[in-house]
């Protein structure tokens, strides 16, 4: 036994990728939209397909095997698989099955399984020659297309048997649930990662380092286009008779080898003759199911193991003995990930020609003939030979030669297959005869080229001066190629990434780095289409939005651009509306006692501003991604100190207002500023940040931390900022809100202008302690908070003045999981207060509580989504949906270091009227911040008095009707 971690069920919904999955994911990401790794399983049905039953059966199979309902994502730079719920559509279609087989998957968004049904397409009567009328009644066919990332050849028996059982159960009306396997593929993937053995990899890489790569058969195309191959493939299939198979088994026993070795030795001899090479590597496709728990799993386990083939030994028996040792050794390397091995042997290809022996055919059933894998018109290798047992159990086999038409002409398939079977038949009959005496029927299409000396890139000298972007591209080339030990001296415009020793995994790394270093998203496929310095330079130039202004200073902590949250995107938009942008600043003024120690305070502020990534954010609109993204690798803001001890009041007020209300250039500036203004009796801190990076709670966190650092206390690690979240379903919420007016009648003294104004001021009253306490108690009886009661009272106050009976008010939802995080977490929610039907106060409170509960359930629905549904025709004369905002204030927090928070006046308002209800020791404080362009002070003062009167009515008799009685 080893001390390896156990392969056990973990039940994780999100898991790392296995090395095999990672390879396919990288190939897919490099060339999205390709059917290269489609596995189209074509079933000829016996009779008619019950489409509904088939769908339920597939859902049962997907339920059993998580990997069939898994999507793939990049989270924090790590590639992960995410297990979802079973979902599939089964459609009856009439387009060409070949087209359907070649339709690409989007691994990020859809499950890797598709199914289509054709009515009466199968007219193939070979299986039913005894049935005279089978030619007339054509059977249905089913195409089950699975992405290779979720399935391999060794999965098919389990998969097909499960489908058979589930389909039977559904048709019979039985429970189609299949028993869950003991572990899932994701469990294997996690184990695969944990048990990766770098020493094994290094050892194997050293063994293979001196075997020349670049196996080219005679007739291979040459030239730059052929250097990479095109992945456009062709198939040639050929039979191997049952007697031949039996003879192979016998020969294998005689030479104490496996049939795998015998078949491979024949292949190696044909390849040797076609290439003129005596030593080369062939990639053996191995099952890589090394643990018994994985044997019945569906999933992509296979690994490619390079096998060293040498034309040593005169007779075929001697060849088999030699290859037997190598094959046995290679099995100990079965788990060395092919991509890692290739990366460890830089500057050369690893294997170009592959071999697979697939000895577990998918079973047939009474419902269908065994599925055949349709060609996808692609080739994964230059040449791949797959030998399979036929599913009928006759002992016969068939071979498939898949080869790259970009590398070899179409006639290769037939000739190579003929040579293979001819030699196979010969060595069976004469294993001890000298191999050299046997002539292949065809031989290579042309004389093979002598082996090129590896590692000398054939690049023409570039005399062009590199452009700035090309220099950056060349820098990226150099950087990543250096990591695999490839030495790169002069790079020209035409220098080719692959000719310099790069490989596709490395190209992905380079592209990710381009995003990190330069903030530019380059699609891997765009680069791989033409992997040169000039091309990458052009892509960097195209991806850059405007020239860099040089504002960025040293990069302390490079980060990839992240998508902004929905709220941040909305605020970015509002920052582009000149009349509104100051309203989305969050200024705070705190007076500290003069003896606070300005130097310590300033150093503490710098420490705190530097530790929160969001406070270093730079935002930009990414045209390609069509969203706002941000990076956090710029220098942090630092506090400044201004001595204002000799200033008069107007000069001081102007200065403070400027600190509070000057907008930020969010693309180029740090979105926070802090200044200590020295006054005769105090040190006044003005801290201002853009609302995209802080909310009210964040400001309190920052001030608390500043206090702690000033006092010499240690801080815990900062909490990461908000992530952009997937859009939640808005339907239920929108239904609950629909029908209410998307505006509120208010006692305005002046008409609205064309553009919303933001200048505001605040008036407030404090309700008596008795009224406050009773209001709290009555609200609590219905389960409503004091804040919700205040919202209800506000609606009644407005209804008593005007005719409106149904109100929408905006209110904030903290949105945060962690009290110590710094960022913008708040979402704006909508509360409906419906006074129709003349409810009593108690009924009204109950309604508001229920409405709030419905809104809280949909707290993840973005405000933008609600706007889009309820108020799409918004204009800029007022806030969307409602001009009224209600919030609960917090009177429990005090600034540290004996500081005193000063009220802001004037204040920027985002709504026409903003009511804040704050529980204080003196009673419930009701403050209204209002737009001064719309309301006179007297109007707000009387509105507050009416609010007080309505509250008194409520606490006096909660069973009385809340509104004035009016004829309806």
């Amino acid at each position, binding site marked *: 036994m080893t001390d390896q971690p156990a392969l056990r069920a973990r039940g994780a919904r999100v898991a790392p990728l296995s090395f095999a999955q990672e390879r396919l994911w990288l190939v897919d990401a490099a060339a999205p939209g390709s059917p290269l790794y489609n596995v189209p399983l074509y079933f000829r049905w016996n009779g008619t397909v019950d489409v509904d039953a088939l769908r339920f059966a597939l859902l049962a199979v997907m339920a059993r095997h998580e990997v069939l309902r898994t999507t793939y994502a990049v989270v924090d730079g790590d590639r992960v698989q995410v297990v979802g719920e079973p979902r599939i559509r089964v459609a009856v279609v009439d387009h060409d099955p070949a087209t359907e087989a070649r339709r690409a998957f989007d691994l990020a968004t859809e499950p890797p399984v598709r199914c289509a049904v054709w009515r009466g397409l199968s007219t193939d009567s070979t299986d039913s020659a005894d049935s005279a009328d089978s030619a007339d009644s054509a059977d249905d066919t089913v195409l089950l297309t699975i992405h290779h990332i979720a399935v391999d050849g060794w999965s098919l028996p389990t998969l097909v048997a499960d489908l058979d059982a589930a389909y039977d159960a559904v048709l019979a009306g039985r429970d189609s649930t299949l028993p869950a396997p003991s572990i899932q593929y994701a469990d294997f993937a996690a184990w695969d990662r944990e048990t990766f053995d770098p020493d094994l990899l290094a050892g194997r890489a050293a063994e293979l380092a001196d075997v020349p790569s670049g196996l080219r058969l005679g007739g291979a195309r040459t030239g730059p286009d052929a250097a990479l191959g095109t992945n456009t493939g062709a198939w040639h299939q050929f039979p191997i008779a049952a007697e031949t198979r039996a003879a192979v088994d016998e020969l294998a026993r005689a030479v104490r080898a496996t049939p795998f070795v015998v078949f491979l030795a024949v292949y190696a001899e044909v390849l040797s003759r076609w290439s003129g090479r005596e030593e080369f590597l062939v990639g053996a496709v191995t099952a890589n199911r090394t643990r018994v728990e994985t044997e019945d799993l569906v999933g992509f386990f296979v690994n490619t193991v390079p096998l060293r083939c040498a034309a040593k030994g005169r007779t075929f028996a001697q060849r088999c003995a030699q290859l037997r040792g190598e094959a046995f050794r290679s099995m100990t390397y079965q788990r060395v990930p092919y991509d890692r091995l290739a990366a460890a042997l830089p500057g050369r290809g690893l294997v170009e020609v592959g071999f697979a022996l697939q000895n577990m055919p998918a079973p047939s059933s009474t419902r269908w003939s065994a599925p055949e894998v349709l060609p996808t018109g692609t080739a994964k290798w230059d040449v791949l030979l797959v030998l399979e047992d036929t599913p009928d159990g006759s002992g016969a086999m068939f071979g498939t030669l898949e080869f790259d038409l970009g590398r070899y002409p179409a006639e290769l398939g037939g000739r190579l297959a003929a040579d293979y079977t001819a030699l196979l038949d010969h060595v069976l009959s004469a294993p001890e005869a000298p191999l050299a005496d046997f002539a292949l029927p065809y031989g290579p299409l042309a004389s093979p080229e002598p082996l090129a000396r590896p590692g000398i890139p054939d690049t023409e000298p570039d005399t062009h001066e590199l452009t700035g972007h090309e220099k950056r591209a060349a820098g990226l080339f150099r950087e990543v190629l250096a990591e695999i030990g490839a030495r790169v001296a002069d790079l020209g415009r035409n220098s080719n990434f692959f000719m310099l020793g790069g490989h596709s995994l490395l190209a992905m790394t380079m592209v990710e780095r381009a995003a990190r270093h330069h903030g530019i998203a380059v699609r891997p496929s765009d680069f791989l289409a033409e992997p040169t310095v000039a091309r990458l330079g052009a892509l960097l130039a195209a991806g850059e939005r405007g020239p860099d202004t040089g504002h960025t200073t040293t990069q302390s902590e490079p980060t990839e651009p992240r998508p902004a949250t929905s709220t941040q995107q909305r605020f970015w938009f509002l920052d582009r509306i000149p009349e509104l*942008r100051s309203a989305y600043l969050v200024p705070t003024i705190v007076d500290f006692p003069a003896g606070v120690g300005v130097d310590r305070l300033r150093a503490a502020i710098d420490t705190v501003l530097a530790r929160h990534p969001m406070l270093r954010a730079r935002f930009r609109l990414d045209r390609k991604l069509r969203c706002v993204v941000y990076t956090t690798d710029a220098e942090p803001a630092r506090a400044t100190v201004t001595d204002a001890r000799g200033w008069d*009041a107007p000069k001081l007020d102007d200065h403070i207002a400027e600190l509070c209300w000057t907008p930020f250039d969010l693309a180029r500036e740090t979105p926070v500023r802090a200044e200590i203004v020295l006054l005769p009796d105090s040190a006044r801190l003005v801290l201002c940040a853009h609302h995209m990076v802080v909310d009210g709670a964040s400001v309190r966190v920052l001030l608390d931390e500043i206090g702690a650092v000033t006092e010499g206390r240690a801080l815990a690690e900062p909490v990461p900022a908000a992530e952009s979240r997937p859009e939640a379903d808005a339907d239920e919420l929108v239904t609950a809100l629909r029908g209410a007016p998307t505006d509120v009648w208010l006692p305005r003294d002046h008409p609205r202008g064309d553009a919303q104004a*933001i*200048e505001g001021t605040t008036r407030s009253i404090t309700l008596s302690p008795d009224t406050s306490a009773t209001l709290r108690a009555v609200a609590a009886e219905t389960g409503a908070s004091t804040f919700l009661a205040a919202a209800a009272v506000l609606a009644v106050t407005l209804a008593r003045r005007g005719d409106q009976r149904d109100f929408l008010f905006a209110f904030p939802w903290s949105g945060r999981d962690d009290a110590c995080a710094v960022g913008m977490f708040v979402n704006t929610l909508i509360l409906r207060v419906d006074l129709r039907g003349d409810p009593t106060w108690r009924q009204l409170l109950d309604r508001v509580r229920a409405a709030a509960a419905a809104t809280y359930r949909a707290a993840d629905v973005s405000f*933008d989504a609600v706007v889009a549904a309820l108020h799409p*025709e918004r204009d800029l004369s007022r806030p969307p949906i409602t001009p009224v905002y209600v919030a609960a204030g917090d009177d429990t927090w005090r600034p540290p270091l004996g500081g005193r928070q000063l009220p802001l006046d004037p204040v*920027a308002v985002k709504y026409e009227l903003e009511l804040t209800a704050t529980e204080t020791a003196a009673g419930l404080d009701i403050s209204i911040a209002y737009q001064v362009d719309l309301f006179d002070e007297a109007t707000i003062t009387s509105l507050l008095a009416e609010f007080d009167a309505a509250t008194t009515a409520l606490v006096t008799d909660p069973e009385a009707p809340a509104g004035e009685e009016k004829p309806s």
Partner: protein
Amino acid sequence: MTTLDHVREAWAEALDITTDDVPLDVSFFDAGGNSLLLLLLWERLTEHTTRDLKAADLFQHSTVLAQSEFLDADDEPVAAAAAPQASRSGLLGRARRDG
């Protein structure tokens, strides 16, 4: 290209549809736009006009036809009053009066 062509192209880019699919007399928001896409549109349109085009103008002139007419209208060049500055000094002015 006419102004109308420029506007249609800018819509097509912002909405990620073909130019032929751009409706002429439907508001940007009804055609699938949102505030962020409006900024994409605004950025593109500013490249085709010497006017001081504001994002807010695209709310008031919300269809392709209206925007095209608006851009074509031979208005007096708008004085380049830096709007953010105006907003801030308004606020500051208020501060002085109230203080």
